[in-house]
């Protein structure tokens, strides 16, 4: 990698360091705090009775099945909604910040005026964001594994790793969507709107469509379903799930860089 490519990667890495660290530490803290409640939760009686009173479709929709088991506890509290949603939002916000927001504010222009291609500036930004997402994922994983150990939550490490990676890839996919819209339009509001709408819609499709017999087969159009539909905390994850999230993300990013090279740069 040339010095210029490194610099184009280093600029967004530096620029996003505050936001990246806040996301990483916040999600890790959320994980530790949640797992810290596990011992008292495990020992409390009557939980299964409580769950028995909730209609089964709702239990499935909110990931509350087997809530008393370690996997059920983690799924219901963290990995059914909260953590994947946070990662999707982080992916959209971080990507938007380093691409459309910087372009629209004019702060990307000093770099675009240098002897580098538009696509290289754009891909440098994307690379910086993906590295920050990786940092978030690594910190998440560490927080989960360490707190499981401390608070006696017994669950197989490979299941945890798979779940964290799938959630992370869901975030990467949403970052990829943000990159495409940013490359295409350069408008932060549009990136944010579409990115957030997609995150919420993806969850709704996965969680609520199964309640309706008519809509149930359509749950598989949701990236959330590709990531979490196999219940990765309980079952071994099929390889296609990683590919279904990762490959489109790369394609979206490539399209974003391509389309960014073919339009006017926003005036700022």
């Amino acid at each position, binding site marked *: 990698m040339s*010095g*210029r490519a*490194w*610099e*184009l990667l*280093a*600029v967004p890495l*530096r*620029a996003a360091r*505050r936001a990246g660290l806040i996301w990483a530490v916040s999600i890790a803290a959320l994980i530790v705090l949640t797992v810290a409640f596990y011992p008292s939760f495990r020992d409390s009686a009557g939980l299964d009775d409580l769950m028995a009173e909730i209609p089964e479709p709702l239990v499935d929709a909110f990931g509350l099945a087997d809530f008393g088991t370690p996997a059920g506890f983690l799924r219901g509290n963290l990995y059914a909604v909260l953590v994947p949603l946070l990662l999707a939002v982080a992916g959209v916000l971080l990507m938007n910040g380093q691409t459309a927001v910087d372009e629209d*504010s*004019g*702060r990307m*222009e*000093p*770099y*675009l*005026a*240098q*002897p*580098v*291609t*538009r696509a290289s500036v754009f891909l440098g930004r994307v690379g910086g964001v993906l590295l920050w997402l990786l940092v978030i994922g690594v910190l998440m994983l560490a927080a989960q594994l360490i707190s499981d150990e401390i608070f006696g939550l017994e669950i197989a490490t490979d299941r945890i790793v798979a779940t964290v990676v799938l959630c992370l890839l869901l975030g990467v996919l949403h970052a990829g969507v943000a990159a495409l819209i940013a490359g295409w339009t350069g408008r932060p509001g549009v990136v944010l709107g579409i990115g957030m709408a997609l995150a919420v819609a993806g969850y709704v499709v996965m969680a609520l469509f199964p309640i309706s017999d008519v809509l149930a087969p359509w749950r598989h159009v949701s990236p959330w379903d590709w990531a979490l539909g196999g219940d990765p905390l309980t079952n071994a994850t099929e390889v296609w799930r990683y590919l279904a999230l990762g490959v489109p993300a790369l394609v979206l990013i490539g399209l974003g860089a391509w389309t960014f090279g073919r*339009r*006017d*740069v926003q*005036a*700022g």
Partner: protein
Amino acid sequence: MTIAAEPLRIQGLAKQYGSVQAVRGIDLAVSAGEVFGFVGPNGAGKSTTIRCILDLLRPSAGEIRVFGRDPRHDGAAIRERLAYVPGELRLPERVTGRQFLQSIGRLRSRFERGRLEELAERFKLDLDRNIRHLSSGNRRKVSVLSAFLSDADLLILDEPTGGLDPLMQHEFLQLVRERREAGATVFLSSHILSEVQSVADRMAVLRAGKIVAQGTVNEVRGLARQRVEIWFETDAPEWLGRLAGIGEPAVDGRRFRAVLTGSARPLIDALAGQAISSILIQEPDLEEAFLGLYEEPDE
């Protein structure tokens, strides 16, 4: 021996945003080693033209050649020889001026890192303050430094003195002259006529997306209108209004007012021996200076 291509040639450049025609057919050529003034009021299309040269905008029509190459296809290679100070200045905020300039330096093959301290000293710029905490004038200095440190063959400066105090403007114009002496070509956009006049060899005047005057600074300057006000010791003579170059004369007791276009010589000659108590020839603002040249834009 190869013949060096012209630093900049623009033919029939037009740029449309939706229904707005920002640039409506510009032709100009900038020769190697000259300072070319690109003058026009705000909104005339100067920045749009410049952003097309940088390949930040894609022209709707026309052709741009920078050192004989098309920015659309050879943008990165062109920008190797070109440095730019944007008009709408935005810099990354969470870095110091030094960090930003070093970062730009790492993106260029030619960058005079060794002159960083010297130029910062000349511009009285604290390199180690966060850009977020710098005034707009100091941010402008950071941007100006990035261009002058770039050791570029062509400097494209869009309203570069905005926010600089007069002392720093003087220092800036001095730097422009130094770069020209070193063989560089400078394309200087401004809405301040006197600034361009003091440093440029040739200039073009832009209005509503079209060039309304182009030539040497003296030629173009001759087309500009100046306000004249003369106070006589007795009643002002009416015949002054009939002199060559005098327009819109108004006599009000001892005061004579008019607009002067072109050479001031007929007026000065005519005034020789007259009992005059004071005389004022005022630099008008740009819009007024070239009022005679401006056709009404098609709204």
